[in-house]
């Protein structure tokens, strides 16, 4: 697809359950127990099991890939400002990714993103540049 400055990219919503976190832990090698044990998560002061920040970021990469038909990512960054708390039930929670094309220059399209879970922003200044 052609990316044009100012284009709004249709929001994508993805489910996040405890099962998603277990699967991501196995695929990524990140077995930090705060992503699967309520006991340990609460012992270190978290509200409960939280998603891997890198899982949320991977979902953002998925949205970008879907918007751009798999365009080559050159730069990608975000701050993890609020945890994605994942309850131990069948529904879990969701992560919604929306984006706006900020600029297209020198063959690179820069997309500013908004990433929310529930009504809370979970990433700070998420931004990606892809080869346009």
């Amino acid at each position, binding site marked *: 697809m052609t990316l044009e400055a100012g284009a709004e990219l249709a929001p994508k919503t993805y489910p996040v359950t405890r099962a998603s976190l277990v699967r991501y832990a196995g695929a990524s090698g990140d077995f930090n127990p705060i992503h699967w044990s309520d006991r340990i998560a609460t012992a270190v002061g978290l509200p409960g099991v939280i998603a891997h920040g890198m899982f949320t970021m991977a979902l953002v*990469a998925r949205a970008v890939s879907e918007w751009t038909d798999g365009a080559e990512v050159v730069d990608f960054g975000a701050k993890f400002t609020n945890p994605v708390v994942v309850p131990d039930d069948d529904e879990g929670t969701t992560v919604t990714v929306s984006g706006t094309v900020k600029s297209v220059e020198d063959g690179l399209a820069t997309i500013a993103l908004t990433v929310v879970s529930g009504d809370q922003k979970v990433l700070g200044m998420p931004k990606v540049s892809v080869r346009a």
Partner: protein
Amino acid sequence: MAVDGSLVGRAFPPTRPYRVTDEKVREFAAATGMGWESGDAVPATFPIVLAFDAMNAFLDDVQVELSRIVHGEQKFSYARPIAPGDVLTATLTVASLRQIGGNDIIGTVSEITDDSGAVVCTTSATLVHRAAEVA
């Protein structure tokens, strides 16, 4: 226990060479709900598999428990796309260290290089080492 400030600038040994395979990339993509076929772009966050290995070795070395680490920030900057067949290693350097509210804020940079030594991707991570509660 605070992390020792003299770590700043220290580079840790490179991780064992890691061969990127179709099967591993497909497994990683599937974990985020994506289908993946040979020839598709490798997911942009895939190098975390190597960077995380490097981080684990670093945390072991400085005797920090993984459960006390929360991810603060992550960036990837690519010199070229990763492709199956690449043999990659990650070399982690501690870039910065500061203390805020009893927590250590550890800035790390991991360079992912291929078997010719060329940099493929530079990943930087900010790790928040949460202090144990004072009883």
